[in-house]
């Protein structure tokens, strides 16, 4: 038998600041040439495990380690970060930190420069890798001028210029639009075959990773490995939902149709799973799509014109209306202007011409603070919103500023903290939170203010299924009881398909479509133009020749958001 590339035996790890261990008795092997997905709820220890693999623990994060950790048959702890980096390339989650060069070319060249290689050799290698990643034209661009997807590709090229055989990815898809995510996964696949790489991916978007044929899934929960097997076996065993993770949507559909998933062959792959026999039961699930009709215009956007600079116009006369009490999704490819639009609504940016009306009143003369009394906004990057040093203070601060009385602050804050599952950590300093936990914290800090209109930029980035559905249920509830208007900007196709009642598609600053998510996902040309991808339900439907797949989707919607 081949020797394992990675071999962990009974590894336990405790961060310096933690009272309890974060990883408990972890044992697993990864063999050369494998592609392994590590999945697990937010805060379950995935990133921590990755840090053990690339040596950041213990070299950058202090703590207590016990057990045996080997890479290529050698103890990881005894090696320097430099030695390890020649064997394993890491792409970190934060692409702005990963991108250290002043330009694309310099960033791709970075590792080679550090090895003190001759400049002409570096140049030819950079040219080769940049053109393979479609960056050939952009070698001179600064990171500020690239889209999320381009930064991601630069990061990959910068790691691949090394000849290391192991690649580690921490949530590579988190900020990519679905099409760019697909391109990234395809790229990883191709490289793996060509260069015989071993790939370890941490990701919450399981459906999208599974499309790229992973060999194995390791499921983590509370710092332990709870399953380690092929995707088929994992899905058959139903262990993903038990651990708060999302199964691919078509599997959810099959379960809904009472198909015996546990014995179904190839159940992890929507293109080869054997479901012909179940066509009828699946078709019977069809549920009519309920079209909500809302009448009162809450926000009206009139002929909005906005540019950052003369060369790249963003909005050139955008008009639309957002209705009271609706749940609106805004989708579109990376760099289309979605975040820009929310900045215009909240007053972070001022339009060149046009108008924005809230309940018939123009917002343009109001200050940011005045608008914020009605419109709550959760930014894409949680670090930009956090001001206090502890979890509790962060959520309470908005109420303190509004001079709410102390007793009420306490009850409201605790209530929201429970809702986002951070109450037990309320006294923790924010620096000890994982990415997903920080994101939930910022959502809580806005929710506690009870805004009439709520704008959430990528609320589910870095979240697992349980936390997502708890959050969505709560949003649904305030939408029903308080008639809160909710606007969600997202790349998450599950969220789009299952939660949103109306979708605006914005591509390069123009409103490409204003429709229901089901119709949007059923329309192949629109899906492509918006850089989206259909969900696996649509693929399953097309394999089975079931028309109106949106009605199948509707069957799931019910299932996944009202538990």
């Amino acid at each position, binding site marked *: 038998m081949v020797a394992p590339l990675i071999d962990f035996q009974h590894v336990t790890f405790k961060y310096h600041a933690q009272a309890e261990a974060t990883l408990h008795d972890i044992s697993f092997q990864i063999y050369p040439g494998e592609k392994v997905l590590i999945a697990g709820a937010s805060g379950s220890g995935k990133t921590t495990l990755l840090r053990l693999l690339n040596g*950041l623990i213990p070299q*950058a994060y202090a703590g207590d380690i016990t057990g045996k950790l080997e890479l290529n048959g050698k103890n990881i702890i005894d090696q320097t970060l430099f030695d390890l*980096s020649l064997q394993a390339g890491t792409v970190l989650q934060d692409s702005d*930190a990963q991108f250290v060069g002043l330009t694309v070319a310099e960033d791709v060249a970075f590792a080679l420069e550090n090895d*003190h290689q001759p400049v002409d050799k570096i140049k030819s290698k950079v040219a080769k890798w940049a053109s393979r990643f479609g960056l050939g034209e952009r070698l001179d661009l600064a990171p500020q001028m690239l889209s999320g997807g381009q930064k991601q590709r630069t990061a990959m090229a910068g790691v691949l210029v090394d000849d290391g055989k192991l690649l580690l990815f921490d949530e590579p898809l988190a900020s990519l639009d679905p099409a760019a995510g697909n391109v990234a996964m395809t790229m990883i696949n191709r490289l793996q075959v060509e260069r015989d790489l071993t790939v370890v991916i941490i990701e919450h978007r399981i459906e999208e990773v599974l499309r790229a044929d992973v060999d194995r899934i390791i499921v983590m929960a509370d710092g332990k490995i709870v399953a380690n097997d092929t995707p088929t076996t994992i899905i058959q065993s139903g262990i993903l939902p038990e651990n708060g993770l999302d199964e691919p949507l078509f599997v959810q559909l099959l379960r809904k149709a009472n198909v015996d998933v546990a014995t179904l062959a190839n159940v992890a792959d929507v293109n080869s799973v054997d479901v012909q026999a179940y066509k009828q039961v699946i078709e019977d699930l069809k549920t009519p799509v309920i079209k909500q009709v809302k009448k009162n215009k809450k926000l009206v956007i009139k002929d909005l014109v906005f540019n950052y600079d003369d060369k790249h116009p963003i909005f050139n006369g955008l008009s639309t209306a957002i209705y009271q009490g609706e749940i609106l999704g805004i989708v579109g490819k990376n760099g289309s202007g979605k975040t820009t639009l929310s900045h215009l609504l909240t007053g*972070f940016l001022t339009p060149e011409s046009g108008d924005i009306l809230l309940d018939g009143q123009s917002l343009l003369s109001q200050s940011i*603070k005045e608008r914020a009394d009605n419109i709550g906004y959760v930014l894409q990057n949680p670090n*930009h919103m956090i001001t206090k040093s502890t979890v509790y203070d962060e959520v309470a*601060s908005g109420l303190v500023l509004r001079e709410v009385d102390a007793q009420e602050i306490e009850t409201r804050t605790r209530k929201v903290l429970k809702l986002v599952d951070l109450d037990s950590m309320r006294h923790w300093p924010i620096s000890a939170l994982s990415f997903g936990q920080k994101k939930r914290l910022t959502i809580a800090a806005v929710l506690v203010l009870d805004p009439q209109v709520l704008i959430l930029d990528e609320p589910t980035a870095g979240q697992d299924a349980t936390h997502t559905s708890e959050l969505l249920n709560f949003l649904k509830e305030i939408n029903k009881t308080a008639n809160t208007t909710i606007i969600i900007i997202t790349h998450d196709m599950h969220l789009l398909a299952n939660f949103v009642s109306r979708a605006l598609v914005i591509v390069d600053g123009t409103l490409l479509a204003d429709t229901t998510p089901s119709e949007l996902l059923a329309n192949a040309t629109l899906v492509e133009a918006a850089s989206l991808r259909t969900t696996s339900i649509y693929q399953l439907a097309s394999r089975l020749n079931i028309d109106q797949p949106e009605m199948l989707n509707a069957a799931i919607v019910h299932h996944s958001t009202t538990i």
Partner: protein
Amino acid sequence: MNNLFGYKQRDTWLNRATGTAKLIGFLTLTTIGMISYDTRFLIVLSLLSVLLMKTAKIQYQEYALMLKFVLFFAIINLVMITILAPQYGVRLYGTNHVLFGSGYWTITEEQLFYEFNLLIKYFFSLPLAIILLFTTNPSEFAAGLNKIGVPYKIAYAFAITLRYIPDVQSDYRTISLAQQARGYEISKKASILARSRGAVQIIMPLVFTSLNRIDTISQAMELRRFGREKQRSWYQEQVFSRLDILIIVGSIIVGFLGITLLFVNNGRLYNPFK
């Protein structure tokens, strides 16, 4: 490309020269200009720098703001000197040619001449700096610094500064806006105290994000072996051409001229009053 300093691709010989040569030229000329108080030399140096700037095809609008800042700075300083030390020129040059006024407010030729020298000094380096900043690709600075003997780790620290200034700026903007949306009023409507408190609320997250950045960026760099070798190569390193040698030799000649004048004048001052 990174546009903090107004670097643009221009088709001139100064653009084609390497960053290293321009850096050496800049440092030599500004150092000698800083030391020398020989008015004739300073005037020639100023004319030379303005001439060079003309050949670099830099438009007035591009540096108008800088010019205004220097003008403001110069005026404030000259006014302060006139008020606080009206007899300083007399002390420096050792003679006393009264023009008008009396007592403390006696204005002398020496004082005016001294202030004229200062004025040239405030201005002479501006064109040189503009050339350096506007014609050098920022990516070349780090490589250039390393080449003239600055240890590569320090040169790279400088590159990181250039790389992250735009990010820090946009962080600052976003944080400021997000805090206003949370309820901090920092517009002119609020009281001074409220505004100060608001400003502190922006600085805190900026500080913490930046400290976090230090952690993650140093991890990203170590994972790609920064600091492993005694030396590192630079993608942006340019090979010296004859032009570069010429620039360096030229500025060294000017430097020598300045030094020679120090001996001729028996010191840094050129004294027309004796």
